[in-house]
């Protein structure tokens, strides 16, 4: 049985997290109001629970579920099995953080009445150009 490990993140916005996961190729992500159990690769129910879950069939063959559990401070903690950390490692979490930052900033700008134009993301750098719809 693959052991689950927890990794703290700076991610707090659920909808931006789901969009960031989609950017990384996970188009089917389960979002639960109440944290729900994760499952292992053999379909075994685990003790770990999460609100945002990529079910194992979408992660890959022989994979376990990947979860994101809301913490008391509002941030999400990633729950990833030892087996899946081969691919979903620190580098993957960096990419997720970068896509999250992009999605979060885009959302904030749109909420403030800006149309987001040119956006560049490369090597940990974000470049934004946005214009207010109010002039």
């Amino acid at each position, binding site marked *: 049985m693959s052991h689950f490990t927890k990794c703290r993140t700076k991610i707090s916005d659920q909808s931006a997290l789901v969009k960031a996961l989609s950017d990384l190729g996970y188009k089917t992500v389960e979002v639960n109001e109440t944290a729900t159990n994760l499952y292992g690769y053999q379909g075994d129910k685990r003790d770990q629970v999460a609100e945002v879950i990529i079910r194992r069939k979408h992660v890959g063959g022989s994979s376990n579920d990947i979860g994101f559990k809301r913490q008391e401070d509002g941030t999400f903690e990633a729950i990833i099995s030892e087996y899946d950390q081969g691919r979903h490692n620190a580098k*993957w979490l960096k990419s997720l953080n*970068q896509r999250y930052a992009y999605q979060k*900033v885009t959302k904030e700008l749109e909420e403030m009445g800006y149309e987001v134009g040119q956006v560049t993301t490369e090597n*940990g750098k974000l470049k934004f150009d946005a214009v207010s719809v109010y002039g």
Partner: protein
Amino acid sequence: MSHKTTVKTLISDRIALVSALGSLDTKVKTATEDSVKCSTVSFKRKKDGVFQATLGDRGRKTHTSKWFKKLNQQYTYHKLVNELDDMGYEVGQVTTKNGRISFEANSIYGGQSEAR
């Protein structure tokens, strides 16, 4: 008799609002989570979470629609800088002009983008 005017805003973050007012040289007298008071304008949080501004006769002369546009722009700037800082980014050059905002931010953790 003094007449009060209310102005709806898109502002919901109190900390960024206070910073934006500071950027426009508008001194804040008191600030709580749901209320920010200056001498010529006050902001109160409504049920939907956004702040509504209230202006008296003197405030209407100073805080025109142009001023509110500038406040919106400064608020956006401060809100983004705070958000990006929380996410581990350092914000570099920021340009705000004629309703346009352009900026660069670098992750303090570095990192390559990876798409699956």
